[in-house]
Each structure stands twice: as structure tokens, then as C-alpha cells.
């Protein structure tokens, strides 16, 4: 029962093991030799390099390194304003970064090159590995190596049982443990109802590891394809809607819109919705005073040709699925409702004007009202513009400033200053609806002081010189939505799940081989040897082997320690002489056996 071991090398690569140690994985072999042939030789060499583990490793490393700058340098796709700022602040770095594609890292040439090379390498790696694996599945576990003692886990004992009995039991036990087992002579003779004549059983288990690994790598490709589809055919638009207003899904309705290269705007799904009410509640009192608790947009929507209306609500984490698109609630704010009359007394503007929050906590907001169609009392063109602040909860006169103290509509105030002249909207150039172009406007002043008034709902402000008035009727809320069309999501999710399952299989399943040999020893008593070989990281192999040895005990009970006098030639096995010869069942470990796969 003593073990003999000698100098160490990787068991899986031990020359002694021959075919027995081969192909425990389908990982590509490393090749460092230089090509000798002409262009074809070089091409082949290049391909081998690209699909080698070493290059895959380097590309993976480059991929993670390459992703870094995109997280530290502003990106056009995420925040174009910041990119502009950055370029203004950095005269030297700006242009260099621009040349290097640093403002759009993830669509830059060099980043794409890294991941495309990686995925070419991946495909070049997966295809041969799959074939190899299919071959392994079709083949048989390689036969026992000549010297089982050289394997990483080994046990031996002498038994009173006949070798055939031990081998049959081993065969049975390993099969029951879902090993693929093989013993050429044994199985052949068993089929014929005879007794086994071979001296060893080979078994292998854990093929799912390799399958998992292949599934994982294939799933990575599926995910890349899904990501590409998503980016090329996506569309995404934003829309800000005040309570009572609606939206229908066509290009002109969006405040902003962007789409992938292959998206056709004719493909916009026919649907629409109306914002009936926006509900926001806030924590009152306590240390969390003012923290939002609920944001909810109650909408009425229709989809498709029939136009049937449904009611629902959209929340921050609960978008509306509609006609294959999704509508997300992004943000919200207040829209003071005003009525503007001009000098002739005619109502020239009426409606809610969305103001943008300047302070995201308490919603001090600013905004403008543009009234292009106004006239003076003599009927002359006199465009009006108002600029102002809105606070949902005014802190009172004592606070001295126009800052909101709570986000809910507790004590709303609207403060406006007025301009007249040319709004600059007639030129046809697009204008920011939240800013006044004051270049050709004159501020209304009385005695040199700007006309400005703080109003509560119901109050109004008169313009000097009988130019009209503006009335603050009340407040509506607005909500902004993102309407997004992103194909390939299902595929990406499927890929991700497959990758996860494959990965788990690949990392948690151990692939290992076990051999059992039973032969008559020199004294005629049967010697059982069992040995196991796994990937270098198999921690459980010795335990599994010990367990196997234990299970075999009833069929291969231990013989007493050798006692020279007790060895009776009559009892000895007829094969005893054969076994003394160096050629034993290791003959089964014919290199073609494993390599056949």
C-alpha cells in the first residue's frame, strides 16, 4: 500500500501518460515555432497565433484596458455638453483626444479593432474546439496507462476476489456513478455472456465542463450580435408633456430623436398617449423631509390602428410596453399655466409653460414664455417675452429670496420680468424653448427699474404703456418621457443566460478520468490498482477515488498481508504468468485510442 512517487511535472502532460492524459480539455495547444513556408505558411502562422490562448489573453487584457478612458473622459454619446466644455478647457489635449476618438471610445476604430479581433479569435477557437469535443464524445475514454502510480491520485490493495469479479464490479459501479466506462475486452466478452479477459476498466466523467465552456463562448458571440442589432436598429426619442397634453409616435412630435444607422423612421410604431395626471409625493417631516416617495404618471394610451384607449400609469422602474416600444418616465417638473393678453385686449397666449428645475431637491425652476403674435394697442407688431422663476413652495417674505423650500405645490409663486421687441423666432432657425434670445428685445422698465412681479395663482401683472397683461392661472405638472425602440433585447438576455449557465458548468464541473486495473500479482493474489487524473484544479479527485475504493470493498475484499508460505500455486490465477510480462492492459492505452477522438 505504499506509494512511490518521483520527480514532478504536470501530470496531464507527463509523457508517460501518453494518450491517457490527452484531451482532458480542448484548449488549443501553444505553438511558438516560427513559420517556414511562404505566404501561406505565414497566413497559417498568423491564424494560429490569433486563435491561440496567449493572444486571446492579450486581447482580453487590451479590451479591459481600452474601456478605461471612456469612463474617465466625457463621452459624446453620454454628455455632449461636457465634451464641449472639456474641449474648450484643454487646448492641447482636446484635439489630440479628438483624433484618438477619446470622446467616443466605444465606437472608435481602435476599440472596435480590439473586440473584433477578439471575436474573430473566439470563432477561430470555438469551431475547431467544437469538432474536437464532438470527436471526444464519439470516442471512448483512453485506456489505462502502463504505470498507474504516476497519476495524481492512486490507490492499491490486494484482494481475495478474482480479477474478473473486481473489474465487473468496477464497471458496474462507475457506470452507476454516471461515468462513461470502457474496457474493450471486458465489454466484448460480456456481450457474449463470457467472462471478461481484459485487465482494466477506463472511465471518464464531466464532459459537461467542456460543453459548458463552449456554450459560454458561443453565448458571448450571441450577445455581441444582439448588441450590434440593438445599436443599428434602435431609435430613441425624448418628449416633455404637460398634464392634459398628448404625444403620438411620429418624428415631428419628438423634442429630440436619435436612431441607429439602419433604423427607418417610417418604421415608427403607430401609438400615442396622453398625460392625464402626474403624481408626486414627498416625505413630510423627520430627517427625510422632502425626499420623494412616489413618482407616477397616469396616462391614457392607444396602440395600433384600432386606436382603442387604455388607462395605465408609468413609474420610474416600470416603463409602458406599447407596440414593441417602451415608454420610460425620466423626469418631472412644474408648468405654470398663464394667459397673455396683448395691447388690443386679445388673448394671444394661453396654456401651461414647462419650467425646468434648477434645484432638483426643491424644484426652484426657471422658464420663459414667448408670445410672437402680440400687438400694441395701436395694432403694431410687438412680440412679448417673459422670463421668470417658479417655486412650488415659497418660503415667505422673510426668506428674502426666490428659492423653494419644499418640492410639493404648497405655496406656489411665479416671478416674471417682461421683454418686448423681436423674439427672433421668425428667422425659422430653431430656438431653445427654455431661453429668451434677448438680443433684439427690450426689457420693460418703469423709472429705470425692470418691471417684475411675484404672483400667486390668480394674480396678474400689467405691462407698462397698456401693452397688455399676463395672468398666472395655476400650475400643472409636466413629465418627460423617453420613447425607445430597441430590438435584440431578448436575444441579448438569452445569450446572457446561456453564458451564465455555460460558465457555471465550465467552472463547477470537474472533468476526470478513472482507471481500475485488477491483475493477479506474482504470488497469485489479485492486485487492484485504481488511479485518477483530472484537470490540475480538481480538488475532489482523491476523495472520489477513496470513495470508489470503499465501494469496491464488498466485491474486492482485502486479502491478508502477503505471507510467503500461504501462497499456494493451486490458488493462483492462470494469468499470473502473463501479468509478469511488461505488456499488460496498458496496451489498451494505444495512442490512437485517445487520439482517435
Amino acid at each position, binding site marked *: *500500500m505504499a506509494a*512511490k*512517487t*518521483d*520527480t*514532478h511535472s*504536470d*501530470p496531464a502532460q507527463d509523457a508517460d501518460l501518453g494518450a491517457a492524459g490527452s484531451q482532458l480539455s480542448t484548449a488549443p495547444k*501553444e505553438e511558438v515555432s516560427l513559420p517556414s513556408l511562404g505566404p501561406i505558411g505565414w497566413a497559417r502562422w498568423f491564424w494560429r497565433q490569433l486563435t491561440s*490562448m*496567449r493572444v486571446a*489573453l492579450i486581447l*482580453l*487584457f487590451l479590451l*479591459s484596458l481600452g*474601456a478605461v478612458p471612456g*469612463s*474617465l473622459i466625457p463621452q459624446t*454619446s*453620454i454628455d455632449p455638453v461636457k465634451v464641449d466644455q472639456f474641449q474648450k478647457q484643454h487646448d492641447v489635449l482636446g484635439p489630440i483626444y479628438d483624433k484618438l476618438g477619446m470622446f467616443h*471610445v466605444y465606437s472608435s476604430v481602435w476599440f472596435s479593432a480590439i473586440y473584433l479581433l477578439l471575436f474573430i479569435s473566439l470563432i477561430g477557437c470555438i469551431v475547431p474546439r467544437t469538432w474536437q469535443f464532438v470527436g471526444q464524445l464519439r470516442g471512448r475514454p483512453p485506456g489505462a496507462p502502463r504505470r498507474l502510480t*504516476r497519476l*495524481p*491520485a*492512486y*490507490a492499491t*490493495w490486494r484482494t481475495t476476489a478474482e480479477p474478473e469479479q473486481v473489474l465487473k464490479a468496477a464497471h458496474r459501479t462507475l457506470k452507476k456513478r454516471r461515468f462513461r466506462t470502457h474496457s474493450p475486452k471486458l465489454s466484448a466478452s460480456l456481450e457474449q455472456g463470457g467472462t471478461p479477459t481484459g485487465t482494466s476498466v477506463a472511465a471518464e466523467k464531466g464532459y459537461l465542463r467542456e460543453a459548458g465552456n463552449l456554450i459560454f463562448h458561443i453565448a458571448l458571440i450571441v450577445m455581441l450580435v444582439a*448588441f450590434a442589432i440593438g445599436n443599428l436598429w434602435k431609435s*430613441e426619442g425624448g418628449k416633455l408633456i404637460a398634464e392634459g397634453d398628448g404625444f403620438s409616435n411620429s418624428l415631428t412630435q419628438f423634442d429630440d430623436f436619435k436612431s441607429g444607422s439602419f433604423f427607418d423612421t417610417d418604421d415608427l410604431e403607430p401609438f400615442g398617449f396622453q398625460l392625464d395626471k402626474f403624481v408626486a409625493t414627498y*416625505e413630510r417631516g*423627520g430627517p*427625510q423631509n422632502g*425626499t420623494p*416617495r412616489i413618482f407616477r404618471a397616469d396616462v391614457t394610451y392607444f396602440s395600433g390602428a384600432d386606436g382603442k384607449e387604455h388607462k395605465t400609469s408609468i*413609474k*420610474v*422602474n*416600470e416603463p409602458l410596453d406599447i407596440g414593441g416600444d417602451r415608454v*420610460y418616465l425620466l423626469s418631472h417638473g412644474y408648468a405654470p399655466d398663464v394667459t397673455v393678453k396683448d395691447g388690443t385686449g386679445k388673448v394671444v397666449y394661453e396654456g401651461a409653460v414647462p419650467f425646468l428645475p434648477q434645484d432638483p431637491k426643491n424644484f426652484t425652476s426657471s422658464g420663459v414664455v414667448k408670445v410672437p403674435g402680440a400687438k400694441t394697442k395701436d395694432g403694431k407688431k410687438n412680440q412679448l417675452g417673459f422670463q421668470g422663476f417658479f417655486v412650488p413652495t415659497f418660503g415667505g417674505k422673510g426668506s428674502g429670496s426666490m428659492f423653494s423650500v419644499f418640492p410639493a405645490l404648497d405655496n406656489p409663486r411665479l416671478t416674471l420680468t417682461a421683454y418686448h421687441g423681436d423674439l427672433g423666432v421668425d428667422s425659422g432657425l430653431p430656438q431653445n424653448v427654455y431661453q429668451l434670445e434677448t438680443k433684439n428685445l427690450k426689457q420693460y422698465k418703469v423709472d429705470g427699474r425692470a418691471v417684475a412681479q411675484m404672483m400667486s395663482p390668480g394674480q396678474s401683472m400689467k405691462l407698462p404703456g397698456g401693452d397688455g397683461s399676463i395672468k398666472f392661472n395655476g400650475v400643472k405638472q409636466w413629465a418627460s418621457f423617453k420613447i*425607445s425602440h430597441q430590438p435584440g433585447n431578448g436575444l*441579448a438576455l438569452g445569450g*446572457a443566460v446561456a*453564458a*451564465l449557465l455555460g*460558465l*457555471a458548468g465550465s*467552472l*463547477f464541473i470537474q472533468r476526470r478520468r478513472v482507471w481500475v486495473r485488477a491483475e493477479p500479482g506474482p504470488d497469485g493474489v489479485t492486485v487492484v490498482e485504481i488511479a485518477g487524473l483530472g484537470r490540475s*484544479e480538481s480538488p475532489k*479527485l*482523491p*476523495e472520489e*477515488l*477513496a*470513495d470508489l*475504493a*470503499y465501494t469496491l*470493498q464488498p466485491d474486492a*475484499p482485502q486479502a*491478508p498481508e502477503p505471507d510467503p508460505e500461504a501462497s499456494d500455486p493451486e490458488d493462483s490465477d492462470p494469468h499470473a504468468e502473463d501479468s509478469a510480462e511488461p505488456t499488460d492492459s496498458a496496451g489498451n492505452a494505444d495512442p490512437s485510442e485517445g487520439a482517435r477522438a
Partner: protein
Amino acid sequence: MNLAAAANENLAHTSNVLIYSAMAVYTLAFLAHMAEWVFGSRSKVARTAAALTEEKSAASAVTVQSKAKAGGTAVLDRPKVVTRSAAGSRDVPDGIGAHGGTEKGDLYGRIAVSLTVLAWLIHVGGVVSRALSVQRAPWGNMYEFSTTFAAVAVAVYLILLTAKKNVRWIGLPLVTTVLLDLGLAISVLYTASDQLVPALHSYWLWIHVSCAIISGAVLYMGAVATLLYLFRDRYEAKLANPAGKQPGAFAKSVLERLPAAASLDKFAYRINATVFPLWTFTIIAGAIWAEAAWGRYWGWDPKEVWSFITWVAYACYLHARATAGWKGRKAAYLALIAFACYLFNYYGVNIFVTGLHSYAGV
């Protein structure tokens, strides 16, 4: 202020007191561990050097006996399974442990573990009362994330101890970092107990963030083991080459008592490989949540980018272990880089980079 709010504030206060108390007990555990190492240093066992200089053939066999099964016919010896160690490893036995085989050292070590258990219970009390005070998962901001993170890291350690794994050597570095982490959390990152913005109202918060925390805590174990592996490996290399430079007395005393480089390496690999699928799941869950909350599952937000970088770096490490010429130290460096990416994602991105995730609050 209403009653519920007052009760919540009381709970939040209790939580702070518990965290401070846990820190006090962790400090005692730290001192006990120090005592363990100090007393252990008096022992003069030098098994590593002995193993390395001894006749190779005699030192190399390690016997493993099958799991004892009740009722076996134990008339005769059960066959022993002889294992041969893997490629290129030095075949040295594991160090004896911080106590160095001294009784006093061992006693202090046991005291340290008991104190760690006590501190951990108080610590968990602190985390739970914080969760109750805000009535949500206790990881809505960096303070909560840090305290929960440390609690999970200690939990992983205690679970491994309970499973009779040889991990007591990680006690001192773990308790030290837990103290640092809690100190940083309560002084720099502290945020009063607070409600979440509606964007964080989602069950994905439970799933995604808890997985991120568990992954990080376990990966941290792997990183400590990897770092110690690098030291111990160098130590063994020096011993194996008696002609070269020999390790100093301090290094010798400390490293001698650690597990063998091969064991540390294996431990680190198993830890990293086991938790890698969980980290993968964390990212997938995050993508699903992002799809629901922001309308795209992947948008190269800085947090997403760094999760991706971390993931690819660990994939790199796993590849390296399967690539000839990259096993051992090189793979270990990759593992450390990968963990540094995780840390940067947590501290660096939250503090220095603005993105959609920033509202999680410093």
C-alpha cells in the same frame, strides 16, 4: 415629526452605536490576533525549509484517507489514496498557522476568532437596525454599502471556518481591513439614514446590489490569498535556492506560518472561480434593471464600464490559468489587478466620476 419617524431615528441611532461597538470588539480581535502572531513567532518550527532541503522522494507523498464512513468493515486497513502534487509546485507542507504550534499563540488565536464572532454579531445588528430604520435594503449609499460589505466579508470567513477550511491565517488581514473599512465608512462616508429616490425603488436593488456585495466580499478573500501567495511563493523560492539571497528573520517568521504557496494559490483560484459566475450574474441583473429604469440595458455608464472592466480582468485571470506560461505569479498579478478594478469601481467611480449611478450618494 411623526411617531414612526422618531422610532426610525431611534433605530438609526441604535445602528450607529452598534457599529461603533462592533468596531471596538473588532479592535480587541485585532489585538488578540497580534498576540497570536507574536507568541507564535517564538516557535522554531521550520517545516518549509526542511521539506525543501530533504530528499525529494521522501517528502513528496501526501496521503489522503477516504471519508470515514460509519459501519465499514474495518477489520483491515482501508486502501489509502496517494496524491501527487500538481505541475511545478514545490511540494511543501502548509505552514502550521499563526500560533506557530505554541499553546499560548493558539489560545490567543481562538480568543481572536471568538471576538470576531462577537463583533460580527454586533455588526450584523448594526446593519439590520439600519435597514429597519430606513425600511429598505441596507445598501442605499456608500456608508451602508461599506458596513454591509464588511459584514458579508466576515460572514464568508466565518462560514469557511465553520466548514473546517484552513482559513485562520486570513483572520488578521481580514479584521484589519474590516476595521479600516468601518472607520472610513463612519467617518468619511457617513450619511444620515435616508430614503431612496424613486429610481432605486425596485426589487432589482435587492438582487443586483446584494450580489455585488457578496461577489466583492468573496473576491476580497481571493485577493488577500493571492497577495499572500505572492509573498509566500517568493519565500519558498528563496528557500529552495540556498545559494541565493535568503529571507529576513521577520519575513521568515511570518511566512513560515502561512499555508504553502500552492495551497494559497489553489484557495485563491477556487474562491475567484466560484464567485465569478455570481459577478457575471450581478452584471446581467444590473443590465436588466438598467433596461427597466433607463431604457437601455447597456449604455457605457462609468459604473457599467468598470463592472465590465472588472469582469474582463477576471476572465483574463481565468484564461491565464489555462494558458501555458501564464500560470502562477503572472496569473496572480492579473487577479490583483482585477480586484483593484473592483475596488476602483466602488470607491473611485462613486467619488471621482459622475454618472447615472452617482445618486447612490457618497
